[in-house]
């Protein structure tokens, strides 16, 4: 077994410490090489021609003029794709380059390589595509519920290695996945107090700062090396192998510096295109998206239409919840099936509810494809169920805190899927801790602290303060029976005369601090301070995706397991040298439990290094039943709760978030500073969804693909935070840790909206809130009949 916490901490920079991140020095000096910084002599620049139409048939593509432009080396279309013409995470249905039809605005149609990026862009503009424009399907209700629905796809996609067993493959119709959850007797349950509401979540963008980019280098063996910012090297490689018709071993990926991810790098963007251009031209090809192109070049968070009905007794104890959740998946599958699974299985929140009926749908439209973003299906549902909890509190006459505490799940509670929560679930405690936190001072007299800020729109007149609360639940790791594993190679050897450890995984650092925590684990497990984490690449087995808040858990688990294996080998050497006994490695020394220190680790390495590679899995999960949602789908749950304090100018509809307070259970704070960083940053993204962030579409076309018009929180928008971190160990997880990254994004949005409702008295049903929703009743979405998702029962029948 592993050594105790107390002993671990005797090796500096180990688990529970906050050592400085190993890449920090490079990042503050400008030396850290991001994927857009790569350079190679003789390299070409690639660019992408994209469809201007959300839906059109392609009659012809003429590349003649583009090819003739001086400086252009290659112009490629779908005819030039060497292998499979479609790719995808769960279902391969997204064309590498469009053929026959384009299904969303921004779909790649052709690619160009040239000696200057501007030359490449000019050549792309010379490509003539003859489109026959077709009316797009842009309303997800119409996509599934309209009597004259129009299918977005006429061919089924292909299953991939990541397909869930029961994932439908849309043979006809636009439903990617419909997942019901049935628990108790939801059809017959009745209640004294009933609240109903329709809710809407707009399309959010991950808005990482580092644009999609990478460098593809052709190799003499006919293969290709790709340096790229991504979230999962091995799944990129699997999709590349299919599209390029190359064996996987001829495609070598190395992680370039990643400028944030948040889900948007889980799907491919420029990977296949750059490799195609490099293989065709025989020269290195670099591609870097502009910010505008980035908005077209990655998936977004699914917009949602939701109808909820909560029934409770007169004390506010929940009797039933019925919910419809309709998620717009856009033109291609991406990770929509898994997002639907999360929305369905976590759709009623962290509460004990005897009768539940949830139906979640993910559908195809001709809107931009939607897929992974931090919170992944749990964000949308939480906005609806937390809004409902506040309405229930008001109907019963108790506080928002009290309604949540009365219905809180705890360890041993049963989810609507039938799964038992078998680790701490401190829902009530999180709410009580928020209640105990002091409130911020009253309205700022500094103009910069007021709604409208330096725009000088108010000096306090018309400004009302409000306080709101919310809590969310998120699964950690890949669910529903997915074989979720990571691989770690750990080597210990003498460098100079000092023991030194090298940790090598393919797990992707996106900024969260995974490189730091991998080294911390190795220090604690092997008692060696000098630890290096090798660059992530495909020379070692898969690390799984940097998503689902899973890397510290799963790759951390793999690093620990590999260290344990190394330790066993070192103990065998210790037994030969010092005789049989119980040994441990601490602070560079070998200790016997009987005799104390017997020698140093370096002496065990004189006979050579020890290296072990271990593949590590978390405990298995199960698929859920297609009709009832029953199944032990999740490996772990994480909880975060927020209190938001806002000032609202009720005359102008301007909002200032004055303070955010958060309490989160992280099981074990592996790196307390990094934990805080995740809670701060996740909360900020939830703030963005509450009050400003939306990819706006009209007839399937993006209106705001820029940071001028798609607003993310600045340092002026983000208020000071109070954060409390709980460490209630999960007995099933390495070190007792819980995934940290996603939960803070889930609860901050509904908490802020609740605070704005409290300040303004306006019954807000949609995020992001716009000023007109506060001041113009006619502009307010979400009357209880206006945005209903309806029941797409007849959606599989052609008219």
């Amino acid at each position, binding site marked *: 077994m592993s050594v105790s916490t107390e002993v671990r901490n005797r090796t500096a920079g180990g688990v529970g410490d*906050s050592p*400085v*991140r190993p*890449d*920090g*020095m490079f*990042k*503050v*000096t*400008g*030396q*850290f*090489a*991001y994927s*857009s*910084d790569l*350079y190679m002599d003789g390299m070409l620049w690639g660019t992408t021609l994209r469809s201007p139409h959300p839906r059109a048939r392609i009659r012809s593509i003429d590349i003649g003029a583009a090819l003739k432009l001086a400086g252009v080396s290659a112009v490629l279309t779908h005819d030039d794709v060497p292998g499979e013409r479609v790719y995808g995470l769960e279902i391969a249905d997204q064309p590498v380059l469009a053929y026959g039809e384009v299904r969303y605005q921004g779909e790649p149609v052709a690619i160009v390589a040239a000696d*200057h990026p*501007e030359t490449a862009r000019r050549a792309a503009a010379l490509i003539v595509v003859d489109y026959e424009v077709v009316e797009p399907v842009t309303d997800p209700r119409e996509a599934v519920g309209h009597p004259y629905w129009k299918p977005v796809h006429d061919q089924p996609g292909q299953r991939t290695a990541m397909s869930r067993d029961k994932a439908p493959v849309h043979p006809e119709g636009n439903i990617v996945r419909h997942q019901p959850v049935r628990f108790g007797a939801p059809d017959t349950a009745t209640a004294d107090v009933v609240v109903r509401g329709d809710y809407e979540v707009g399309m959010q963008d*991950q*808005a*990482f*700062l*580092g*644009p999609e980019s990478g460098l593809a280098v052709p190799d003499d063996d006919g293969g290709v090396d790709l340096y790229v910012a991504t979230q999962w090297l091995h799944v990129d490689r699997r999709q590349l192998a299919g599209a390029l018709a190359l064996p996987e071993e001829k495609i070598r990926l190395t992680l370039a*510096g*990643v*400028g*944030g991810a*948040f889900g948007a790098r889980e799907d491919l963007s420029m990977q296949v295109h750059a490799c195609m251009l490099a293989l065709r031209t025989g020269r290195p090809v670099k591609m870097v998206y*502009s*910010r505008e192109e980035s908005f077209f070049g990655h998936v977004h968070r699914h917009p949602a239409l939701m109808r909820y009905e909560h029934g409770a007794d007169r004390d506010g104890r929940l009797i039933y919840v019925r919910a419809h959740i309709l998620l717009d998946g856009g033109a291609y599958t991406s990770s929509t099936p898994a997002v639907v699974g999360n929305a369905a299985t976590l759709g009623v929140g962290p509460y004990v509810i005897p009768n539940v009926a949830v139906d979640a749908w993910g559908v195809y439209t001709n809107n931009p494809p939607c897929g992974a973003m931090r919170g992944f299906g749990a964000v949308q549902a939480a906005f609806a169920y937390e809004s409902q909890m506040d309405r229930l509190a008001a109907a019963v006459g108790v506080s928002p805190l009290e309604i949540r505490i009365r219905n809180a799940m705890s360890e041993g509670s049963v989810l609507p899927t039938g799964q038992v929560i078998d680790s701490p679930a401190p829902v009530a405690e999180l709410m009580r801790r928020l209640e105990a936190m002091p409130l911020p001072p009253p309205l700022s007299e*500094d103009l*910069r*602290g007021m709604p409208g800020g330096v725009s000088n729109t108010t000096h306090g007149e018309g400004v009302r303060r409000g306080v709101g609360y919310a809590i969310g639940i998120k699964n950690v790791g890949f669910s529903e029976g997915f074989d979720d594993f990571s691989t770690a190679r750990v080597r210990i050897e003498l460098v100079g005369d000092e023991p030194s450890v090298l940790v090598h995984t393919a797990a992707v650092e*996106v*900024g*969260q*601090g995974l490189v730091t925590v991998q080294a911390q684990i190795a220090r604690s497990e092997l008692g060696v301070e000098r630890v290096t984490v090798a660059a992530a690449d495909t020379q070692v087995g898969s690390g799984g995706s940097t998503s689902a808040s899973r890397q510290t858990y799963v790759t951390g688990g793999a690093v620990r397991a590999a260290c344990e294996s190394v330790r066993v080998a070192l103990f065998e050497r210790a037994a030969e040298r010092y005789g049989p006994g119980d040994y441990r490695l601490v602070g560079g020394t070998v200790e016997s439990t009987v005799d104390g220190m017997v020698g140093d680790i370096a002496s065990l390495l004189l006979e050579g290094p020890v290296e072990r590679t271990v593949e590590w899995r978390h405990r298995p999960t199960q698929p859920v039943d297609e009709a009832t949602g029953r199944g032990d789908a999740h490996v772990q749950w994480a909880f975060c709760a927020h209190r938001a304090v806002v000032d609202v100018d009720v005359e102008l509809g301007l909002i200032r978030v004055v303070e955010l307070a958060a309490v989160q259970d992280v099981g074990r704070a592996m790196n307390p*500073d*990094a934990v*805080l*960083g995740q*809670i*701060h*940053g*996740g*909360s*900020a993204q939830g703030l963005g969804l509450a009050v400003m962030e939306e990819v706006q579409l009209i007839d399937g076309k993006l209106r705001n693909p*820029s*940071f*001028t018009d798609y607003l*993310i*929180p*600045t*340092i*002026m928008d*983000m208020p*000071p*935070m109070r954060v409390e971190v709980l460490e209630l160990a999960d007995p099933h997880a390495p070190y007792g840790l819980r995934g940290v990254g996603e939960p803070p994004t889930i609860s901050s949005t509904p908490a802020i909206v609740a605070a704005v409702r409290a300040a303004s008295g306006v019954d807000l049903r949609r995020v992001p809130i716009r000023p007109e929703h506060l001041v113009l009743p006619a502009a307010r979405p979400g009357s209880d009949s206006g945005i209903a998702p309806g029941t797409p029962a007849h959606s599989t029948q052609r008219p």
Partner: protein
Amino acid sequence: MTIRLTMRVNGEPCAADDVWEGESLLYVLRERLGLPGSKNACEQGECGSCTVLMGGEVVCACLVGAGQAEGADIVTVEGLGDGEQLATIQQTFVDSGAVQCGFCTPGLLITAFDLLARDPDPTDATIREALAGNLCRCTGYEKILDAVRLAATRQSSSR
């Protein structure tokens, strides 16, 4: 048409040949002078990731035409330290956990460096106003504020 561009960058005279007239200062720094520290996140002056000092003024290098920088004195993130030691603000960004993905960091460092040169003891409201043009998507800005406060403290105690 192309031009030859001469500037002082981080104290060193330098020149770039064959500069296309439509190129930005950011492109010249990154692609012609081998200084990719200044970042290309939006290239329309909204995010601040490309912030540099030009003639002592904070500018978005993406909005400066290459020709406008002729003869200018430019300081990028690569020039903040003295080659041996980090500038105080660089060290406090590392120490405070203000760096996550780090893509915004070079621009924030230049802006904060400039702020502390003008105002060695800024209030929180002043720090927020000064950094309002630099977007960060990872940190929620809390630890960036910590880093600027810590740099102010360290600089005042070393004077």
